[in-house]
């Protein structure tokens, strides 16, 4: 797990994506902000694992208390969600 005080949320997320993809034998696409998450190579289960891991690593779960939240479509949306939740 990463230490959230030393590296950015973005780096933590990207690092976790690589770690989870390797664990689940998934091949990742080039991770750009405009990449739809579901085309990243991660399936729903991997994304569920990612959200849980980020909750543990960053102590942020932007999905937890927000019924109005729109689901993030792109990787950029996803990172933004965590950056907004922290600020």
């Amino acid at each position, binding site marked *: 797990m990463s230490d959230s005080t030393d590296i950015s949320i973005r780096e933590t997320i990207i690092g976790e994506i690589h770690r989870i993809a390797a664990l689940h034998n998934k091949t990742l696409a080039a991770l750009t902000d405009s990449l739809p998450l579901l085309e990243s190579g991660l399936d729903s289960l991997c994304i*569920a694992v990612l*959200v849980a891991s980020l909750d543990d690593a960053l102590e942020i779960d932007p999905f937890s208390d927000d019924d109005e939240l729109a689901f993030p479509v*792109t990787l950029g949306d996803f990172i933004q969600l965590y950056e907004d939740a922290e600020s």
Partner: protein
Amino acid sequence: MKMPNPDPPTLWDLVQKTGLPAEFSLSDSHGAVALGALDGGTCLGIELEQVRGRTVVVYTERQRSAALAAVELDGVARRIVLCPPDLAVAKLASVIANAGVELILSDKPEALAGQVDVRVAACGLPARPAPPRPAEAFETEWLLFTSGTTGNPKMVVHTLQSLTGPAVAGAAHAAPARWSTFYDIRRYGGLQILLRALAGGAPMALSEADEPVGEFLVRLGDFGVTHISGTPSHWRRALMSPAIRNISPGYVRLSGEIADQAVLKQLQSAFPQAKIAHAFASTEAGVAFDVSDGLAGFPADWVRRADAPVEMRVQDGSLRIRSARLASAYAGDPARQLADAEGFVDTGDTVELRDGRYYFTGRREGVINVGGLKVHPEEVEAVVNLHPNVRMSRVKARKSPITGAIVVADVVLEDRDGFTFTQTRDEILATCRQLLAAHKIPVTLREVEHLEINASGKLLRVNA
């Protein structure tokens, strides 16, 4: 089984009664086939007369082959065993024994050569000319697999009547509909949609296991889907796809998992014109109700309502159902009771009452629902406990906004020196990856000092 019984219409009767309009078809990524192809035609590589009164397994690669075979077999075969897509060939032996199977129909019959002890015949397109259907109809039994069972697969017995009616409160019957579902039609949730489409003369687009969700949504957009169903996890995945913009259904249905307020609101916001309904159904208990007021849970006064076609009770915290839509028995296990003495099936789904509404809280026996796939904690614990450093473990659910739940484990280690938790954890996870499907592997392992045991000596389990 009653035989012969001309009274209840067969599935083909229902299909034919629609007048077989030209657009009445089943489509997948390979194209569409009109139901009219079965009018004087057959997709079976065996004469219907030879299937009459037999128990037939439908074991196909493609959903379309299975759907067409079922239309032809209902009313002719004694039993139709509809195999889900993930049923391994190795499990067929127990299915054959438990259901008394005499014939297997497959769209890839060559793949079964030498692997099973019963006759294998082909099914699938193209249709070929067929002699008229046998006049006398059986009340065919439909054997469906319960989801997420461990060990040998369990099947319950339905009939076309228990699968199709009576209609439940809140169900939509708007026409003209163009149906689809994220489910596989060989599972209860998908079969419900297929039967509605078939009885309504409506076209239906079938999902495919390996088709990326974006491509499926584009296909549904081209198809012009108006009515579509899936689990909350299916829908969350769809909502994360940019291709969600391709569809604008008028009726969106969720079932198979707890529909929370968040996913209901997100769907209403994605499809402002649509009626969003969530349904409660299980393979054993059938369809119990549709909720379409936009809220999670269901009104408390639906429970113990006397004159309803589906009667509900809450007993010991779980929802019980009695209706004409229940399965009648477990196939191959007649001693196992499906319903209690009064005819109520315990769904095992726990509910709690808050402000005049019941909300689902999880499963009583701790079964974890990961994106519609059930996980028995005991199965995962057995694998975790294989490690010599583990004294005991408890596997439980952790809430997930993506798949409803994910699997996590608490582990009590042996009280001796010479190893670290980190090393043990990595070894446990490596074993899990070898022995368990991906959705069953604990996402996190936590070391705990002890696990609570209840008065009868069992591991204390809490709801998901």
